[in-house]
C-alpha cells in the first residue's frame, strides 16, 4: 500500500480547479513513496467531471455518483471517501471550504492523522514530511503523520495547478457506500451563491483588494480597476464585516489565501491576519493615506495617497500603459 488518493472537488458537473493543486501534491508524494496516484471523483455530475480528470497520469479515475450526493454534505460523502481511502497510504484534497469540511471527518473514520493546509511536501528518504504554516504564517512547522493512512489537505496557492500531460487513465465506477448515521439528522436547505464574472480569488493572476476605507463605494471604486486588469476582487475582514463586500471575498488567515502575480491592497492597514493571506504574492502594491500603515512593510510599491482620487487615475494610467 504505497499509493495516493486525490479527493477531487466537483461542482455542477465540472472538476474544480482546486483539484489540480492536490494532483500536483499527489504526483510528488507518489514518486516519493514509490506508488501511483488515483483520483476519486464523487458528487453530482461526477461522471461528466471525470472526463476532465483525464491526462494527469492517474492510475485510475474512480467515479461515485448517487442521487443522494446531489448537495454536498460531509455526513453523506465521508463514508464513501473513507471506504475508498482505506486502500491508500495517503488521502489528499485541497484546503478549500469543501476540503476543510470533509477531510477531517474522513481522517477520523480512518483513524488517520490529518495535516491541514500544507504548503510543501518534503521527501525524506522514502517518507513524507509536511510543511505547514502556523501563527498566521509567522512560523512553519515540519510535521509527519504516524498512522498507516495519512490524510492531508494542501494550500491551493502553494501548489501550482497540474497540467494535463500524461496518457489516459482507466475509469472505474465505485458504489456509493451510503450515508453515516449522522446524515439522518442533517438537511441541506439552500445555497445562496454569490455570482461573479470575475476569476476565482485563489486562481487569479491579479487581485485587487479593498479595506474598510472604501465604505459604500467599494464596488464603484474597485470595479473599474479590476476590469482593466482582468483581476479578482478581494477584501479585508473589516470591509466584509461592514457589508461592503461579500464574506466570500475575505483575504487573510481565516479567509482565502492568495498568491497572485500582482496584489493591490487599497485602503487596507495590513493587520497580521490580512498579511497571512497575501504575503505570498509576487508583487504587492499598497495605496494608503497613512505613511505608517503596516501594509507598507510588505509592499514592493507603496503610494501614500487618498485612494478615492488615486484609483481612478490609476485606472487611466494602466489603460494607457496597456495601449
Amino acid at each position, binding site marked *: 500500500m504505497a499509493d495516493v488518493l486525490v479527493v477531487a472537488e466537483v461542482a455542477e458537473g465540472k472538476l474544480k480547479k482546486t483539484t489540480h493543486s492536490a494532483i500536483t501534491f499527489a504526483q510528488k508524494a507518489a514518486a516519493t513513496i514509490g506508488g501511483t496516484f488515483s483520483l476519486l471523483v464523487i458528487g453530482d455530475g461526477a461522471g461528466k467531471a471525470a472526463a476532465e480528470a483525464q491526462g494527469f497520469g492517474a492510475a485510475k479515475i474512480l467515479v461515485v455518483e448517487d442521487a443522494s450526493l446531489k448537495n454536498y454534505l460531509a455526513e453523506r460523502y465521508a463514508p464513501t471517501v473513507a471506504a475508498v481511502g482505506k486502500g491508500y497510504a495517503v488521502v489528499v484534497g485541497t484546503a478549500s*471550504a469543501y476540503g476543510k469540511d470533509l477531510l477531517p471527518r474522513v481522517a477520523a473514520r480512518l483513524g488517520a492523522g*490529518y495535516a491541514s493546509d500544507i504548503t510543501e511536501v518534503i521527501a525524506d528518504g522514502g517518507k513524507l514530511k509536511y510543511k505547514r504554516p502556523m*501563527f498566521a504564517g509567522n512560523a512553519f512547522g515540519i510535521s509527519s503523520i504516524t498512522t498507516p493512512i495519512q490524510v492531508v489537505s494542501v494550500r491551493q496557492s502553494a501548489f501550482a495547478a497540474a497540467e494535463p500531460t500524461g496518457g489516459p487513465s482507466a475509469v472505474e465506477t465505485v458504489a456509493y457506500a451510503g450515508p453515516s448515521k449522522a446524515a439522518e439528522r442533517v438537511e441541506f436547505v439552500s445555497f445562496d451563491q454569490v455570482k461573479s464574472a470575475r476569476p476565482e480569488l485563489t486562481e487569479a493572476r491579479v487581485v485587487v483588494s479593498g479595506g474598510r476605507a472604501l465604505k459604500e463605494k467599494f464596488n464603484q471604486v474597485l470595479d473599474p480597476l479590476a476590469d482593466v486588469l482582468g483581476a479578482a476582487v478581494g477584501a479585508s475582514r473589516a470591509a466584509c464585516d461592514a457589508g461592503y463586500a461579500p464574506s466570500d471575498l475575505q483575504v487573510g488567515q481565516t479567509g482565502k489565501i492568495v498568491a497572485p502575480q500582482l496584489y493591490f491592497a487599497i485602503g487596507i492597514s495590513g493587520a497580521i491576519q490580512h498579511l497571512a493571506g497575501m504575503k505570498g504574492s509576487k508583487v504587492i502594491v499598497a495605496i494608503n493615506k497613512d505613511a505608517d500603515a503596516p501594509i507598507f512593510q510588505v509592499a514592493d510599491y507603496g*503610494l501614500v495617497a487618498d485612494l478615492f482620487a488615486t484609483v481612478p487615475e490609476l485606472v487611466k494610467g494602466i489603460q494607457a*500603459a496597456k495601449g
Partner: protein
Amino acid sequence: MKILVALKRVADPDNANKVKIPASGEKIDTTGLEWKPNPFDEYALEAALRLTENGTQPKVRAGEVVVVTFGPKETETTLRAALATGADKAIRVDAADDKLDGDLVARALKALVEKEKPDVVLMGKQAVDGDSNQVGQILAELLDWPMATFAATIREEAGALLVGREVDGGVSTLRVKLPAVVTVDLRIVAPTSVYSTKTPATHKYNDGVRFAALPAIMAAKKKPLVEVKLADLAPDQALKVSYHGFAAPPARKAGIKVKDVSELVSKLKNEAKVL
C-alpha cells in the same frame, strides 16, 4: 439547551509576528506574548450565551453553558474569564500543549460529551496558533453527530438549529437536528447572527462579544471549575501528528515608496513587468 464550548488559549494573535524561532528550529518561542483566548472560541462562547437567553431586557437565561479547555493550571485564568462573561461551569482537562494534537483533543472531548450530555458542542472553526481547522469535524465524526462548520448565523428551532455557513462562493444553509457540533466563523457575532427560540426576531445584539461586568467577575469566583485528568478521558495518548522542527518564513525584501500614479504604473510595467 445545554451547550459545551471548547475554549483554547493562544499566544496573543495580534502579535503573532513576534514569535521567535531559535536557530536550532526545535520550537516556537512565544515568550513575551500574553495568553489570550482564541478569538473564534470567544465568538463560540458569545453564540452559546445568545442561544441560552432571551436577548432582551430583563435578561433571562434559558439553558446552561459549560466551557472546557485543555491545558496547564494557568489556563484557568481563561476559564474564569469565561465564567465571568456568563458561562455556568468550567472544566479544565489537565494537559500540556506539546502532548496534544487535534485528534487527541477530539477523542477526549468525545468522552467529555458522553459525560456532560450537551445538546450542542460549539467551538471555533480554527485555533489561530496552529491554524488546523480540524477538531470540530473530527469530534462530529467520532460521535457520529451531524455538524455545521464555519457558521455565520444560527437560528434555534424546536430540537434543531438552522445554520448559515460561509463557504466558497456563497452561503450554504443546513438544518441540524440536535445533538450536533457547530464550529463558528467571524460573522457569528454580528448583531443579528444568533437567535434562540426565546429571542424576539426584532432583537439586535451589540456587535462583537460581551464583556464581563465587575460584579460578574466577583461572582464568577464562586462558579464551579473542575479539573479532569486527560488519562480519564483518553487512555491512549499517542499523537497521530508529530512535529520535527520549525522555521521562520522567508522575509520579503523591502520595497519602495513611489511618488505618484505615473511612477507606479511605470514601475509595474517596466520593472516588475506585471502589466
